[in-house]
């Protein structure tokens, strides 16, 4: 089957098929099929973006201005949120790939049976409700009765147990760990799908050229999964940026705003403090940050992965 070549993020594949279609649909009829999806997109995605842009510059009794952006720029919590959002993206994705890729390689290439079992068991955290996970991990991290405390106690370290979620230096990372725990299985599954779809001929040719074992993983499989890497990094970026329930339920952005991200700060300023205009401004920043990060990721992917051997053969592999 020839399918979405290039993956989720690429522009639509050119239709090279000769025009032999004979479905006698007029343009009006064809657009009737487009309308439900397009309508929902306009209402709940395009309109919100435009409304945010407008709300961030408009003022009830004054001309439109960038005053709220200046307000954000001089707000220290805003900068903490920006920094934490970037930390969320970088740390989550780095760990998810570092854990997910090797596990997928083991599942697909190193074991003769039990693949489906491992893929399923590793994917299970993905399907559990995040607000449930938040409370379970809050208990795991809890001083005096949590599972982690029990481990410290068993090792004789009970006295040096840190207040994991109450320590400004740890709080963000402690929540990111939970996010990584939940999403690794997704990375494993996507890498498994990617590896299973690699062109066996290229793998065999590489084996003849002496690429076996770790060399095969490093110089053949890793670069051939380029489109999987790119899609996972982009998906992981948006996922990390929009993570809300874990932070909201585990730290409320605290202690003292130390684990605030742009997502939680939008909620806090918009709904708790009822500063909708300011929250819209933060939302515009989040939107722009997402675009900038994705653009940077594409640039890195082009520069870095393209230099690896065999990187050029990707795409034809599916």
């Amino acid at each position, binding site marked *: 089957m*020839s399918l*979405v070549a290039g*993956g*989720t*993020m690429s522009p*639509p594949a050119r239709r090279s098929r000769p025009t*032999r*279609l*004979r*479905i*006698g649909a007029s343009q009006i009829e064809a657009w009737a*099929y*487009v309308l439900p*999806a*397009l309508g*929902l*997109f306009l209402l*709940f*995605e395009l309109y*919100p*973006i435009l409304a*945010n842009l407008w709300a961030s510059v408009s003022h009830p009794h004054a001309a439109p201005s960038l005053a709220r952006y200046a307000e954000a720029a001089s707000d220290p919590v805003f900068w903490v949120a920006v920094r934490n959002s970037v930390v969320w993206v970088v740390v989550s994705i780095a760990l998810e790939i570092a854990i997910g890729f090797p*596990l997928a390689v*083991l*599942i697909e*290439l190193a074991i*003769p049976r*039990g693949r489906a079992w*491992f893929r*399923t068991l*590793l994917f*299970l*955290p993905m399907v*559990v*409700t995040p*607000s449930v*996970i938040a*409370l379970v991990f809050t*208990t795991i991290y809890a001083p005096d*009765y949590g599972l982690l405390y*029990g481990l410290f106690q068993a090792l004789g370290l009970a006295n040096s147990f840190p207040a994991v979620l109450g320590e400004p230096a740890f709080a963000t990372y402690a929540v990111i760990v939970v996010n990584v725990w939940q999403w690794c299985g997704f990375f494993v*599954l*996507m890498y498994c799908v990617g590896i*299973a*779809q*690699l062109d066996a001929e290229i793998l065999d040719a590489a084996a003849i050229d002496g690429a076996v074992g770790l060399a095969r993983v490093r110089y053949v499989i890793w670069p051939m999964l380029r489109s*999987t890497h790119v899609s996972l990094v982009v998906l992981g970026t*948006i996922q990390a940026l*929009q993570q809300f*329930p874990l932070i909201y339920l585990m730290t409320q952005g605290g202690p003292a705003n130390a684990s605030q991200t*742009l*997502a939680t700060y*939008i909620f806090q300023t*918009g*709904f708790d403090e009822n500063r909708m205009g300011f929250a819209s401004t933060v*939302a515009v920043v*989040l939107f722009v940050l*997402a675009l900038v990060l*994705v653009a940077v990721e594409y640039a890195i992917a082009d520069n870095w992965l393209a230099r690896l051997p065999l990187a050029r053969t990707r795409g034809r592999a*599916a």
Partner: protein
Amino acid sequence: MTHAGSRAPSRMLIAYAVLAGACAISLLPTVYMIDISLRNAADSFAPVLIAGHPTLRNYAAVLSHARFLRFFLNSALIAALTVVATLVCVTSLAYALSRLKVRGGAIVLLVIMSALLLPLASLLIPITVLLRTLHLTNSYLGLVGPETSLGIAFGTVIVKGAMDGVPLELEEAALLDGASSLAVLLRIMAPLCRPALLVVAVWQFLFSWNEFFLALVIMSRNAMKTLPLAPLFFEGPYMANPGKLFAILTLIGVVPMLFYAVLQRWFVSGLMAGGVKG
């Protein structure tokens, strides 16, 4: 494409050991959650994985709680409606783009795909304001609409990919018999794309069942709340009684786990066949 048979058996054993360890870490919090839900009051604060003396009393108490059942019903209804609405939107859009030669179709696809780059938090405030204006907060439609729209981009990738792979000969036969475009979609394309539709349905069900952020701001009335809000609702009352709270958490979490366990075979094979290559 595996050559595992030719490997040294010790390497294979190491691979199994690593994978088993990873699975243990991935399952441990769930085991811990279930164990706390089975504890009696005396053991509930013990810092161990398995406390022993399991009891089902917590479940009996929780299941008779009317509010919890209402949350459950709300979640089930919203998830079902979201799945149906998403399938309708995605299937018809993918069909139009794949087969009907919509003028400007490439631009439509690009625009719809751009939604994959929007973090939900950046849309939340205008969506809420819009729903308040339309008097759709605290209504099922108020959640089904945004949740459906958030699933369209991913679903369209999957279903359009599957439809592009369906050979044209199949529908040409039907067209010779004078079938309409809708008949071709319903009788030929949709059945042939069932694996892709199942992937979208599973994904959307899990998304809707677990969705917290939208539900938090749109469903302020207790009667309309969904299950992901239940931990927040019961956290206070059951503060001193983790057994009961964790029975609720287990009941919420076990539904998507069973759902996925039952459907995972088709979900994964649908992904493999569907060219979700990255």
